[in-house]
């Protein structure tokens, strides 16, 4: 008599439920990207970010260079670059200490790719920029202060 209702309930378990949830927007496609390091990008402080990247307490190194302007007029577009002469660099990350989420970007460098990347980032306010590199399995860091006259994260 009420068979249709039964079937709907049955179908409601398992995979079908997932698609219903996804359709309802409870599970956004963003969450399905398992590869993206959500913990690291959601971390607020420098220490939490470093922990999420598995970096612990990286040593300061003169062989890591952060390039960028001393003063950025527009915090929405701050050109920064990271380069390093350390051997076997497999990972480079750019962090902004005083942004709402410290981590801006990570780059995984396969063999043959040089540790020399440039990009543009947003900065909410004057802050230190950290460049983190992983060389021979160890983490090294360098820093540079960039003064921002107009924030890039305001409304």
């Amino acid at each position, binding site marked *: 008599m009420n068979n249709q209702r039964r079937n709907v309930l049955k179908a409601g378990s398992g995979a079908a439920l997932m698609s219903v949830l996804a359709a309802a927007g409870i599970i956004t496609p963003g969450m*399905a990207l398992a*590869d993206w390091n959500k913990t690291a990008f959601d971390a607020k402080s420098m220490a939490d970010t470093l922990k999420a990247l598995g970096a612990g307490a990286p040593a300061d190194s003169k062989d890591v260079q952060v390039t960028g302007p001393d003063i950025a007029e527009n915090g929405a577009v*701050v050109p920064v670059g990271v380069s390093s002469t350390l051997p076997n660099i497999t990972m480079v990350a750019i962090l902004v200490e005083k942004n*709402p989420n410290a981590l*801006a970007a990570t780059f995984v460098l396969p063999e*043959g*790719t040089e540790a020399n*990347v440039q*990009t543009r980032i947003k900065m909410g306010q004057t802050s230190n920029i950290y460049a983190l590199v992983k060389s021979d399995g160890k983490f090294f860091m360098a820093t540079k202060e960039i003064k921002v006259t107009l924030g890039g994260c305001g409304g």
Partner: protein
Amino acid sequence: MANPMKIRAANKDGVTEVKVLISHEMETGQRKDAAGALVPAWFITELTAKHNDKLVLSSEFGPSVSKNPYLAFRFKGGAKGDKIIVSWKDNKGDSRTDEAAIG
């Protein structure tokens, strides 16, 4: 669907420099619109670059990468005419792949 990327790749002394300019809003999720409602985050999360079939860069972005992201990197090897293929994926599940030849 997003606009195409601009990709420039040039080989000099055995090292190929790739420059990519992506057309993307890169909304942080922190900004409010005129009515005071939070603008939902919308940004590129992953980007990969290949030289022919070989992966030369894989990158993860947070929302603090600038609008219309620019990226430059260098790798050893590459010859004139080789393909550089760049793909990205954003947090809304949109994606795009473009390619260019090394000039």
